[in-house]
């Protein structure tokens, strides 16, 4: 058990290392010169060179990378090229908003899709099943930022039911959570649906009915617990997609989170900030996957060992 955990942690560390290397290389492969963006279009050559030396951007790539890695392991992700604030502080200050939004999105995602999947499996080929199928296709195809803007315009601006933007109270999170979660709802509802159809054909379902158990107990206690297992595995992978949606959603709704922070960093070519936010995002995804892994082991007693 401990060995398994250690092995997982090792893989997590390797994943983060690999991510940091890839991001570093991509950030430095971009043809735009960060010095030009930082110093402004009117700086003369001497200023640019001085700036370059000061920011250590004239060192060989390998040296820059190793320096970055060494600092990162000590919790120092450098300073933003733009605001000069420590990257780690900026990230931690903005993390709560992103966490709240992600959890909200996840909640909507799962709370809607799972019962929907169970219902459509039970009432197969009836109207609710067909309607859900159409909705599923639509929600998967709709871009997050478009949906966010539409909801913002209609429900917040025109009808005034929700705050338009910013993070002032929990009501500010409703529209963003819906925007974030709805993309997954359709897909997961169909996933649960098809898994439930398989499960409902199993002998143990018939055996449960033969013991006189009521239909809700049969569906949820006996059926869903089995049908959710493949959903859990997919959920681990979809965590990364969730964070991707977070970037757009935070932008549209002006939430002070990591998504907006990283978007600004990219637009400013603020390399330390880019690296910091991406690495942190990778950390979140890896952690989420570890959590899902543990939950999976709890839910399915047949999984043993690594």
């Amino acid at each position, binding site marked *: 058990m401990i060995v398994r955990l250690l092995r997982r942690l090792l893989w997590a560390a390797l994943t983060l290392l690999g991510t940091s290397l890839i991001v570093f290389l991509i950030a430095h492969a971009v043809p735009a010169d960060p010095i030009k963006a930082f110093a402004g279009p009117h700086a003369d050559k001497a200023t640019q060179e001085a700036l370059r030396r000061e920011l250590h951007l004239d060192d060989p790539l390998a040296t820059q990378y190793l320096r970055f890695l060494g600092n990162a392991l000590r919790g120092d992700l450098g300073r933003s090229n733009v605001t000069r604030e420590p990257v780690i502080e900026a990230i931690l200050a903005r993390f709560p908003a992103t966490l709240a939004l992600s959890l909200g999105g996840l909640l909507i995602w799962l709370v809607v899709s799972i019962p929907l999947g169970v219902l459509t499996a039970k009432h197969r080929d009836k109207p609710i099943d067909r309607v859900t199928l159409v909705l599923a296709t639509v929600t998967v195809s709709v871009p997050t930022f478009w949906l966010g803007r539409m909801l913002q315009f209609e429900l917040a601006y025109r009808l005034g039911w929700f705050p338009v933007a910013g993070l002032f109270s929990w009501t500010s999170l409703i529209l963003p959570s819906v925007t974030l979660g709805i993309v997954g709802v359709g897909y997961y509802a169909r996933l649960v649906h098809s898994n439930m159809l398989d499960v409902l054909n199993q002998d*143990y379902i018939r*055996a*449960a009915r*033969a*013991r*006189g*158990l009521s239909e809700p107990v049969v569906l949820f*206690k006996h059926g869903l617990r089995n049908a959710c297992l493949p959903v859990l595995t997919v959920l681990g992978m979809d965590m990364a997609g969730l964070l991707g949606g977070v970037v757009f959603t935070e932008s549209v709704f002006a939430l002070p989170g990591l998504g907006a922070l990283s978007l600004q960093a990219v637009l400013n070519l603020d390399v330390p900030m880019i690296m910091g936010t991406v690495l942190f995002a990778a950390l979140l995804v890896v952690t989420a996957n570890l959590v899902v892994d543990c939950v999976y082991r709890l839910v*399915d007693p*047949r999984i043993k060992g690594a």
Partner: protein
Amino acid sequence: MQPLLDIRNLSVRFGAAPAVDGVSFTVAEGETLALVGESGCGKTLTALSVLRLTPPAAVVEAESIALHRRELTRLSEREMRQVRGKEVGVVFQDPLTALNPVWPVGEQVAEGLRLHEGLGRRAAWERTVEALREVGIADPRRRASEYPHQLSGGMRQRAMIAAALACRPPLLIADEPTTALDVTLQAQIIDLLLRLREERRLSILLITHDLGVVAELAHRVAVLYAGQVVESAGVAALFRRPLHPYTRALLSAVPRVDGQAGRRLATIEGAVPDPTRYPSGCRFAPRCPHALEPCREPQELREWEAGHWVRCGRAGEWTT
């Protein structure tokens, strides 16, 4: 004496095809009736119809399905749920697939007890441990917390029997209870069922295609072919003097330990007819070595001697 289970004119159709066609039988208290036949002859559907557990696409019609003289066809779904598990227990064929893999074995026994006997969690668990002990599972307290995949095949089948009989129903429907097991386990399960039957005066509706199991467990036998009962008799009478050509063919198909070595196994030529294309007369005629002109007419089930019924016009012509 009133029979415990009384089925009259039961039919199960899928669209136009009658998978079960006018089947009638009774099971008395303490009696074991075996429904015998090849795969696809409708025996499992017949048994499932008693509890309304047939697939949604199946249309079930019956003149009467009565348990303890209570007409089951007129019960609401809610009332039916009180019959399932409490008045009738079911044991399914494959204990690995019939037990839910994500719940401990004990939970699958206890939930029935909590539901039908209103027991609290602790009381139900104690009864569960007892039930597992009664079916011969060693160290039942530990086993109750284990999952199906942690138990051996024999223990799983015992656990399923425990779950089916936990609320002490008077009738047990056993659908191929030994088919998925090897011979030694089969013998153990048969012994278990014999003991339980003795201790609890249990009635058993046994579905099987294994005539050996029939010989050991059953008091009476009904042979099904193409959705109809073609012969029904006491087990001794059936084995001593099978009347229907199908029954005779089934019995001769069983390889004998004392038979001649090197002899070809006897088979029944042809295959079970498709329910959408039953022959208009005797349904076994296309495969029957004794078929004649009169066999083109539909055959009725007639009582040939006391308690021995057969659906064949030429039944009396065989010598044993």
